[in-house]
Every structure is written in structure tokens, then in C-alpha cells.
């Protein structure tokens, strides 16, 4: 049920538009099916599943808009849903930021966003993968807690102005925390894919187990400024947060780090080390994504930072028109260019430094400078003369990704993490402000 074919989906949407008496109407049909398994203390704790298709109808009269949803698709229900959207629209206030619906769009060809292997996942598959993970922990007398979540689905859109879109998508995410029984060591690994064929819980669990065993009896180092190697799982959140501030309106309104003294924004300015290049591309083979955004705008390869220079900001359609700037939607995931080195290579090239597996409870401290705080977690190690010497106690950091990406020493090969492609980063003068006893 959860995956309705393009022909069938567009037939439902055409029928919906036919029922509408509104000035403009847009209908979005989407569905997903999937499931999850959670474990803790080497036993399955909860499991669940979802199988759902749902229709959203937006009706507009002039600048008034209303939305209604339903999850059954017989004619009577569809008619009621459209009528409800129209009733809500009539009662709504006029939107001063009204934009007419988009007409027909040209989208990139769809690549491999949907994988049969992911759609074919069964409860047995989930139990087996998590079972394998638990077995590795149990053999090594460690305790694991893991979460496996997968889903496959589709999205179809159609509106009264001629826009038509359809795409299938699938995904799987897995994360595992492995701890020593005495609570003195902890390790973590995570991964996500569109195609479940690439996934193996055992490989990831071994990495987490090695980190757990290796992080026992950590030594305390003085907080201060250190050269750090941030593994991709540690770097991703800070980068993601920074890219979350690339909104043109916030910058133009003067309430973003991209706002300019005296007004305007900092597009075109070099704010980062010249090796920093970040772009998005829904056709990337490692990170296949939707080729259209929520409002129907095309998603295509877009440079956000090129050689350290801010190249583009995303915005709403309204703001793009008002500010006369390129009309670019916020993308799904980010791709940071990197080098060819592995984390191991980066460690080898480091005289003194700290390897960080993961950062945790990251919160914005000052939006003006994008200062963030948070802590290291699940495997923090001291590096000397190209080798890991010993585990160290976790640190709290206070650091801005802007400063961090100006203090770039080296980077490695990008890997997929949390729906982005991120290289391991070697950063000098990363600011740790206090120690934590947490393991």
C-alpha cells in the first residue's frame, strides 16, 4: 500500500484537482512503510512499524490558503478533504507573503534514491541485523544499545498550474552505542544509506566495540585549545548547523552571521579557508535525494561555499522575489569536498592532537558568531607522533564552525553521515573549555 505507482498517484491527484472550485489547488500524496528495532543491554527493547499513505490538499482563494489532509482515497473522502481545505481557506487571513503556485517544472532525472533491497526489509531482517550486533557485544563481554530504522516511500505532487512531480525514496539508519560493563568505556558508530544492501550491523558494531574497549580508564587532560581530528560523525552537526544559517532573509534582516554591517548580506565574501567547498546535489550517487523541494521548486547542484567564498543563500520564493535574488530552495543534505586521506592517515600526520568520535548535546550559544557548545562522547583519544596514545576524558567545547573552518589543517575522504557527505576534519586551536566525568 505504501508505494503507489506514478500513474496511479497522478490519477488520484488529477481527480482531487477536478473536485476543487478554488482559484488554485495543489495536492500532495505521499506514503511510506518501514519499521524499527531498538535494543539495550544486549536485548531487544522495542520494535515498531509504520505503513501509511496520506494526501494533503491546499486550496487557495486569492491570497487565502487552507490545507486539509486525509488517508483514504475513495471519491467521497477526497471530495470531503477538498471541501474542508476550501472551507479553511475561506476563513484564513490573507497572506501578505502570497506567491502564486508554481507551474510546470523541469526536474533532474531521478537516479538511485529508491532501493529495492530497502523496500524488501522484513521484521526478520531487522531482528537478524540487531541480533548480530548484540552477539558481537555479548562475545566481547560488552553491553550494546542500538537502533535500526528503515522506510521506503514515495511523494507525488500536482497542482492546478500544471506542476507535476513524482519520486520514490528509501532509507535506512543505524546507530549503536557499546559500553564496558563497569561503565568506564563507551564507543559509538552510525551510518545511513538509501540502499540497505550496503548495510552491515556487524562492521559498525565492531568499530563501536573497539572504541568502547579502547576508551577505558581515560586520563584527564587540561582543557584548552587543541588540534583535533573530528571524525565525520563529530563534524556533521556543526557543519549542518552552520548551513542551517544560510537563509537569505535572516541575513538580509540582519539577524544571522551572514548579515552585513550597514545592511545586506555577505554573499561573495571569503569567510572560510580557501579549501572549504560545500555544495548540494540530489543526483550524487552516494547521497541521492529528492529532485524537487516541498513547494515544487527544482533541486539541483548548487554551490553554497566555493573555495572559502559564500556563493549562494537559500530562501523562500517570497523573499527571492522581494529581494530580487536567485530563487533557490534549501536542499536536503550537504556535501563538503575533502581529500583522499582516511582518519588513520590524518592521525599518522599529527604530532599532537585529539581524536573525537562524536559531539553531543550541541546548542547554539550566540547566533551572531555561530558559537556552539556541546561535549565529546563515546571515544576521545590523545594522539602523539602519529599514533593514538591513550583515551582522554570527555571535554566540553565552545567553538564556532566559522572559526573552525578558518583553522583547517587538513581533511580526508568524505563519507556519508546523517544524510550528508562530510570529510574527517583536522582543525587547529579547537576550544575545549572544561572537562566532563561522563563516559
Amino acid at each position, binding site marked *: 500500500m505504501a508505494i503507489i505507482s506514478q500513474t496511479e498517484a497522478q490519477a488520484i491527484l488529477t481527480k482531487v484537482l477536478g473536485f476543487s472550485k478554488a482559484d488554485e489547488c495543489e495536492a500532495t500524496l505521499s506514503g511510506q512503510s518501514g519499521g524499527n528495532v531498538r535494543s539495550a543491554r544486549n536485548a531487544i*527493547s522495542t520494535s515498531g512499524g509504520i505503513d501509511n499513505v496520506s494526501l494533503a490538499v491546499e486550496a487557495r482563494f486569492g491570497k487565502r490558503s487552507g490545507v486539509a489532509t486525509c488517508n483514504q482515497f475513495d471519491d467521497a473522502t477526497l471530495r470531503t478533504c477538498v471541501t474542508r481545505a476550501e472551507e479553511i481557506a475561506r476563513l484564513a487571513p490573507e497572506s501578505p507573503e502570497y506567491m502564486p*503556485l508554481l507551474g510546470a517544472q523541469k526536474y533532474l532525472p531521478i537516479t538511485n534514491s529508491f532501493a529495492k533491497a530497502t523496500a524488501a526489509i522484513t521484521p526478520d531482517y531487522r531482528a537478524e541485523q540487531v541480533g548480530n550486533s548484540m552477539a558481537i557485544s555479548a562475545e566481547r563481554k560488552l553491553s550494546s544499545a542500538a537502533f535500526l530504522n528503515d522506510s521506503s516511500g514515495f511523494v507525488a505532487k500536482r497542482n492546478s498550474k500544471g506542476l507535476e512531480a513524482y519520486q520514490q525514496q528509501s532509507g535506512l539508519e543505524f546507530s549503536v552505542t557499546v559500553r564496558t560493563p563497569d*561503565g568506564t568505556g563507551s564507543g559509538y558508530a552510525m551510518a545511513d544509506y538509501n540502499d540497505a544492501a550496503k548495510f552491515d550491523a556487524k562492521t559498525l558494531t565492531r568499530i563501536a566495540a573497539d572504541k568502547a574497549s579502547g576508551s577505558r580508564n581515560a586520563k584527564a587532560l587540561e582543557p584548552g585549545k587543541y588540534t583535533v581530528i573530528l571524525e565525520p560523525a563529530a563534524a556533521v552537526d556543526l557543519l*549542518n548547523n552552520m548551513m542551517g544559517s544560510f537563509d537569505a532573509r535572516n541575513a538580509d*534582516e540582519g539577524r544571522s552571521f551572514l548579515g552585513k554591517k550597514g545592511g545586506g548580506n555577505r554573499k561573495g565574501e571569503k569567510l572560510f579557508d580557501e579549501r572549504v567547498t560545500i555544495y548540494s546535489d540530489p543526483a550524487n550517487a552516494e547521497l541521492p535525494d529528492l529532485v524537487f523541494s516541498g513547494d515544487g521548486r527544482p533541486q539541483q547542484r548548487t554551490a553554497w561555499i566555493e573555495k572559502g567564498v559564500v556563493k549562494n543563500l537559500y530562501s523562500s520564493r517570497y523573499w527571492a522575489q522581494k529581494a530580487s535574488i536567485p530563487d533557490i530552495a534549501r536542499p536536503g543534505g550537504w556535501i563538503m569536498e575533502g581529500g583522499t586521506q582516511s582518519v588513520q592517515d590524518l592521525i599518522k600526520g599529527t604530532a599532537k592532537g585529539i581524536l573525537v568520535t562524536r559531539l553531543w*548535546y550541541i546548542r*547554539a550559544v550566540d547566533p551572531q558568531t555561530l558559537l556552539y557548545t556541546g561535549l565529546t562522547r563515546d571515544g576521545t583519544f590523545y594522539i602523539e607522533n602519529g599514533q593514538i596514545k591513550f583515551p582522554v576524558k570527555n571535554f566540553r567545547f565552545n567553538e*564556532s564552525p566559522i572559526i573552525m573552518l578558518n583553522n583547517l589543517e587538513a581533511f580526508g575522504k568524505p563519507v556519508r553521515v546523517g544524510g550528508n557527505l562530510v570529510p574527517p576534519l583536522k582543525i587547529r586551536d579547537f576550544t575545549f573549555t*572544561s572537562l566532563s566525568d561522563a563516559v
Partner: protein
Amino acid sequence: MQPRYGFFVCGLQQTQGRLYLLAEFLPPLTQTRTDLKRRDFVGLTGLAAGALWLPAVPGFGGSLVDPARLLEPGLDVAVKKRLADVALNTAKSAGATYADVRIGRYLNQSVFTREKQVQNIASGESFGAGVRVLANGTWGFAATNTVTEAGIAQAAKLAVQIAKANSKVQKEPVQLAPQKGQGVVSWKTPILVNAFEVPVKDKVDLLLAANAAALDNGASFVNSVLFQVNEQKYFASTDGSYIDQDIHRIWPNFSVTAIDRASGKFRSRDALSSPMGLGYEYLQPKAADKVAGPAGTGLIGYRNSFDMLADAALAAKQAKEKLTAKSVTAGKYDLVLDPNHLGLTIHESVGHPTELDRVLGYEANYAGTSFATLEWRAKGQPYGSKLVNIVADKLQPGSLGAVGYDDEGVPTKEWNIIDQGKLVDYQKIRDQAHIVNQKQSDGCCYADSWSTVQFQRMPNISLKPGTSKLSVDEMISKVDKGIYIAGRGSFSIDQQRYNSQFGGQVFYAIDKGKISGMLEDVAYQTNTLEFWNSCAAICDESDYRMFGSFFDGKGQPSQVSAVSHGSATTRFNNVNVINTARKI
């Protein structure tokens, strides 16, 4: 990565750094693109203001409906009882030794504005039933939105099937603390005005008036929002309970931004309101609910009603003042913390570490574990100074935790967590009580929807006020070098709840017993035990107020829960303060 809905409420909190206002307390999970449920609803709408954002904010899901629908009655209680009996009988026939069913209708409405315009008004309804069973000593759960005898029976059978399947890998059978059946009972949040009965226009007018008050007082931008929730929950179990509950919550909030274009500097000040277990009466200000802040600050604290216009006007003045306020000199200070700030510190450093499932490792892969293990408690070390008495409860009128019965049919109560500085107890539900040799549950089981399974969630966790008379001005008069902090700012704590860092909305220097002026760039970094052991004075009951959150996050897939934290203004000595200003 910020939770995805954090991003989608950018419309409310325009500056990226303020996202946490809505994502409050949710551990920073890495949410991937596999979460299509959120993605397709939220991402795939043409509305600039995002009328479909609702399903992406936890607890605000459901079908979008006409506001009038929120006042229509749900199923008759007799019908619910009949359906519940079908679920319980089906489960028992299929082999369950215990079963409970929750038939839930979850209603919500939110109104978003910025400056002089409405951004969005959305009303949502979600209706369905969840059946939880014990079979072969193992839990099974299934839910359905087909609330008919056939639909609910099918869910009950599926739950038993799942329990039996999971029992094959179960090592230890579930031990459920006994619970006497409650018979046929009901409970309702004692509200005065149902927020859904107030015309949407009145709510819009109030928010726009608050925005105008901010703009008139020098704000460059202002966003405001009103959230309203009504959970109509029917619970029945094979213990012989049939519990009908009608629960209401409300939360007005705003963020005011002042900008100095010449320097490019911007500062925000958020509302000093709190989410509450109240009706619309929370937005009808009463003089008796206003508590004056320290002399020299102009601040007002709010008990059971909030003066949105007055606070918005003050917020604009304070946001402007923040632009030129003195940057703090890092060092040790005595902190005087207002209840609207301290509630969050209590949540993070006492509420979470004393959740028994965290203590035992069930949340290791997400929210984390706890330093306050059973072994740690046995050592008898002080958690805090002798002044520190912290209670858990699900009873306080006006609190978010207040219900008659929890989501597994246990009557609610109050119990001690920290007694004169010593950790004495944890937060438990029926299948955890035996772990600490307790005969009954504490009654803090909760699910955020009919479609999600109930588990242990934080009750209200509150610091008891001081027993001797002490006002905030008297407290400040004894501080030589200190900082007064009101409101919640940035907050972060490690996964075992030792090391934390907290900011605030407004900061005032205290010099030789007097407020001497506003400060900026303040955050304190501390260790939970050092912090609570440095607790030196607590104002009396007349200063006691609650702070809360709608969005305490826990579990995978993550569920939210609403919780309040009461306290009076409290002094902590010699706390490490850092300066958060940076040059980029």
C-alpha cells in the same frame, strides 16, 4: 544535527540560534532522511509559512481540521468502554496475561505571527487506539486508527502476536507491579476557559497586540506563537480500570529581536512565559500572579497567568539594552537564579539523572545514561546542600504533569527525590518498581500518542521553596559579587549529567548587595554535584513559580512529553562563569 522540526519552525524563531525554543530538551539526535513521515508532510507543501509543519512538531500531529471541529465531542464514554472491553477480551483470548488499551483523541491548535501579520493558523486532530499486552512475559504493542470493534480487536491480536514473537529472544520476563483496578472514573484538568472556545480572531489579536507592544518599544522584529493542546484519553486495563481523562495545556511564546544596523549586532529576548497545564485563563493577566523581580531590573515573574503585552514591551526594551550591555568578565560569581531559568537546570541536572530507565542503560544509545546509579546512591554522598529538597509529582495544579492517572492506570502522587541534599528515590513505572524493591509504580508512564507505546517519562520535578521568609531583594542584598539570571538561554549537558552549561535571557550584575546593571555574553559551566552543593539560599513560597516544556524528548523513535519544574529564586555560590563573545 538539530531535530528536523527545529529547522521547520525557523518561521517562528528566525535566527538559527534560537531554534531550541521549540526543540527544547530534545537530545540532539542525528535524524536522517529515512524519516519520511516527517519529511513528506513538512517538506512537501507549497506554503511559505508551512501550514503543514504541524505533524513535524511532536505532539502536534494529526489531520488538519476546521477550528470548530476541536469543540465537537469525541466518542461517547459508553462506546469507548465497549470498544475497550473488545480489546481487553480479545487480548485475553489470544493469550495475554495482562492488557491495556488507550483510546485517544489528541487535539491541538497553533497560531503563528510575525510583526504585523499572521503567518499560520493550524488546527489538528488525531484519533486512534493503542493496545499493549503481556504475553509469555513479554510486552507487545499495536495501534490502529480504525476505532471500531473489528479494528480494535485486530490491533489486540497483533499486539499478542508481537509479544509472543518477541518472547523468543526475551531473557527475563516482565515483572509488573500490581495495580488495583480503579473502576469507572474520570479526571479533567481544572481549567476555567477552554482555549478552543476562544475565537481564533481573539488569539490573533492578542499576539498582534503583543507584537505591536514590542515594535512600539524599539524591537526590529518579533515572532509570536500560541500552542494549545487537549488530550482526550480513555484508558482501560484487565486490572478493572476504566479511566476517562480530559487534559489541557497552553503555551504562549515570543522572541523579540533588536538590531543595530551600523554595527551589524543583533540580540534577542524571549518571553518569560511558561507552558502550563491551564486553559486560556493563563492569558488573562491577574495582578496576584505577578511577582516582582529584583529592584533595578524591572522584571516581572508570572505564576498562573501571563501578561503577554507587558512582557513583550519589556522584552523589546531589554533586547535593545542587550546591544550595548557590558560583556561579562569571566570568573567565579554567586548566582541568583530566577525560577523561569532554574527550572531548566533542575530538568537537566536532577530530572534526567533520576529516570530509572536511564540509570539502568535503556537509553544509552540516545539520551544517555546517568551518574546517579543505584551504586552511587548507596554510597550516600550528598547530591546537594542540606537546603536542597526536590520532589517529584503529577499533582500540582497548573503544572504540565498534572493528571489523575498515568498512561498505565496508576493514580498519581508526590514523592521525594532529594531529601536534605541526599538522593532518596528515582522515577519508576510498573515494570521497573521491582528493580528497587518497590511494591507499586510511581505513576509516571506516558505515551505522546495513541499510536506510540507508553514508557517512563519525567513527572514534575521541583525544588521546594525555603521554609524561612526570604524575598529576592533580601537574597540579593547579601551577595557581594554575583549575577542574577532570568529566562532560559542556551543549555547543554553531557550524557551522564555531570557537566552542564547554561545561558539565560537577561543577566544583571550584582555588586555589594545591589543590581548594578545589565551584562551580556554570560554562561555558567558547572558540575551537577558541585552546583547543587553550592546551593546557599532559597526564597520562600511567595516566590515559587513553575517553568515547563512541551518537548522533553526521549526514546527511539523519539517521543515528547510535557513537564513542569517549580522553584523559588535560589542562590548558588562561587559558580564558574564564562564569556561567550567571539570575533569571527
